[in-house]
């Protein structure tokens, strides 16, 4: 594991909350729009506590066996193979289920005994009951803004977590983050941030999703390494946000007004 702690710029008191939750052995739920730093936050905290991090990207075909583990067939015998969740419970550390809302609801039920004060993981196929060590922590995240018309989290699952809401950072913080991530200079970063903030106001009316900090960092990196600013914004900001030609046109006008041409 890399000893260097990944860069993370706290926005509010989320670092404190996380530390308290960790020391009290409480599971944490993080919600926020895409690209606002959820995943980075977790890897930062894991590095800070110096514990391993197991990430599982959830999808709608994820079964409970994919999390817990299954029997495999070897040379004339079957043997048990731990899933990522079980591995994490055995070894300690943070088990991070990214976009947990994507997983089917019956799948997430296996988290229930782990996420209350029992802190156990029963493996009914092997008959084991694993007790989570003190440094085990369950973290799940999801993006509440997605238009999944028919998906949502079971209230009984939601109510087992300490919940932290993430949002895009303020302009000053975002400038700091972007200049740190892309080592671009102040003026460029300032323009990119003001551009990003302009695009965010279009959410829910013209755009489905707000421009993420991640996209802004991409743009800053491209421009900083010498790519044409307007074209960089087109491919890193405008095109990822919309498929509609006219909307893209309008966004490009804003880009051009910001960067000249």
């Amino acid at each position, binding site marked *: 594991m890399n000893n260097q702690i990944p860069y993370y710029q706290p926005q509010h008191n989320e670092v404190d909350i996380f530390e308290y939750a960790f020391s009290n052995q409480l599971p944490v739920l993080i919600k926020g729009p895409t690209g606002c730093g959820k995943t980075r936050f977790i890897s930062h905290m894991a590095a800070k506590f110096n514990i391993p991090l197991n990430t599982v990207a959830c999808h709608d075909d994820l079964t409970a*066996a994919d999390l817990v583990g*299954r*029997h*495999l*067939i070897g040379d004339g*015998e*079957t043997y048990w193979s731990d899933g990522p969740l079980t591995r994490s419970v055995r070894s300690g550390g943070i088990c991070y289920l990214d976009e947990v809302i994507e997983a*089917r609801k019956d799948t997430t039920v296996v988290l229930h005994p782990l996420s209350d004060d029992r802190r156990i993981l029963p493996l009914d*196929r092997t008959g084991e009951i694993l007790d989570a060590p003190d440094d085990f922590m369950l973290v799940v995240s999801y993006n509440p803004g997605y*238009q*999944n*018309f*028919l*998906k*949502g989290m079971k209230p009984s699952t939601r109510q087992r977590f300490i919940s932290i809401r993430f949002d895009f950072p303020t302009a000053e913080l975002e400038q700091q983050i972007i200049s740190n991530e892309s080592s671009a200079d102040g003026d460029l970063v300032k*323009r990119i941030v*003001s551009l990003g903030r*302009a*695009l965010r*106001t*279009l959410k*829910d*009316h*013209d*755009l*489905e999703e707000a421009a993420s900090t991640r996209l802004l960092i991409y743009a800053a990196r491209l421009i900083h390494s010498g790519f044409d600013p307007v074209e960089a914004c087109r491919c890193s900001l405008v095109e990822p946000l919309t498929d509609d030609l*006219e*909307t893209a*046109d*309008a*966004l490009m*006008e*804003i880009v*051009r*007004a*910001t*960067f*000249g*041409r």
Partner: protein
Amino acid sequence: MEEQVGAYWHRLITRSANRRYPEAVVALDDIKKVVGVMFRALGGDSGLKVEESYATNHFGRRTFLQKIAGSDQRIHNSWLDESALLLPPTIDLLPERELNRDLYIWLAMLASLKLKSREVLHWIEQNRRQSSATLLRFPGFADRYSALASAVVELRVELKTLAPDLRKIEQQVREIIINPTNPATDLFKVGDYSPEQSVPLWLVPHPAQLAGDKLNDLDDKQEHKSKQDDPENGENERSKESKKERKNRLRKAERTDDPDGKSGLIAFRMESLFTLAEFVKVDRTTDDESDDDAESKAEDLDVITISKEQQSGKGGLKFDLDLPAAEYDDTPLSAPILYPEWNYKTGVLEKNMCSIVPLISNKVESVKLPVELQSSAQKVRRQFEALIPQRTWFRGEVDGSELDIDSYIQFRSAKSLSHNTQEPALYKNFRSGSRDLATLLLADLSLSTDSWVNNHSRVIDVIRESLHLFADALSHTGDRFSLYGFSSRSREHVRFHQLKTFSEPFNDQVRGRIEDIKPGYYTRMGAAIRHAASILSKQPAARRILLILTDGKPNDLDHYEGRYGIEDTREAIFEAKRQGLYPFCVTIDEEGKEYLPHIFGPSGFIVIRKPAELPMRLPKLYAKITQGEA
């Protein structure tokens, strides 16, 4: 011959007077969306629409040729009012297409900026500050701005043709255009002044306000055509933005006081002939008849004089939409239920504003599915069987199309550990699951549905067919659903027609009620949505869908129209979402794209261009939005 010469002359003189570039024209229609998105992105109010401005007189001087040609008396300016950003319908002022397009973009950028300033600034100074701030904010636009600015200055009257005092002002205006970041002298901080020519780069104050300013200034000049009797009043009047102005928005408007109703005109002056252009202060309080050819008269008028009436003319409107007598009307199901309404102006949810009257048709005839719909119904049913409920793999089946490796391994490992095994269920199968869904369909039954969509059917017929097919398809899938319709007559009487409840089975009696729907009254959407949401939220299903079927904007007899109605509906939708419902709107209003994103979000609605397709599209749509639930 004379006429022909006249026409030639007119063409010649207007062409040389108007320095326009029709080959470089840019129409607002082509760029509306771009301008709208930019305006919102840069901080403009997302509730505002982008619209074409109407022509107004400009008070500046025209060039000599323009005067001869009689052109350019009225020009299209740009301004903001309470519900829209108004821009010229076309711009062909500048020689290049790019420049004309940039001009639109510049106006959108300028309008989106909100400057906070306590002092009341002259509008030119306001424009200067706004331009300056916009340029600071978008340094990348500077080059394009200076190109625009120099092109605009090119068009201005020559300095030497102006009187010395005007020349000084004109020079300053030019300076501001070229370099708005320089603070101007005190000239524009106080007092009233309009530049000799309009400046297309600037936003003007609201025309009514501008006209008001003018009136105040010129009240001592008798030759002015204003009949404003009471200039002191102007200040108050101007500050109150009236809706009438919006209604008459394709005309130039001016204000006058309303007759007081006590001193009517008694004498009739036989010898004088009144022209249409004159406003005569006649008290016509009792004159109730509508003017049949008002439209053609309005066409002939240069100025339409309107006044602020003390009492509103409600009396005339009431009789044509009265409720039917109780014995002919549908049967009320319960006492009226009160719902709040959102007032966006005050930002308050006003309690008990609307009363919902649940009704059920008193005709209880059973009807079979109409013959002409039967083949379509068959088709839709077949589509439904293929589309929904979505099919998934079921594991651990005793019989199935494929081997379930997981269960097999489990079975083998259990066996090798010599555990007792029951009958193994080692297969997986692909079939549909059960769906935990409840859908409430709310149909708009307002009078506007009485209009014809083609030679055969009205909107209401389309809605009726849609209800038939939708209900038929859903009753075959086993999804829980209910059907309601609504219309309204002001806030005291929002009619909520029950066609099918959740608990009722879908039968011929329900079909009879669907057959019985008829158009009437208005569309107070907010209250109807609130009531529908309260019914739907009592359903135990995990996914609850509120499907709204409409043909136009929310509106009602009273102030429930335009932005008020839209904002109230939006609030009702927010409330529904908070209750865990999924609202979705299906509309046949082509303009729906302009206001529906504001109410339902970018993917919360669909506009169906051909209303006749609605009956077939609706079930498909339902299938689409409910897919994904295993």
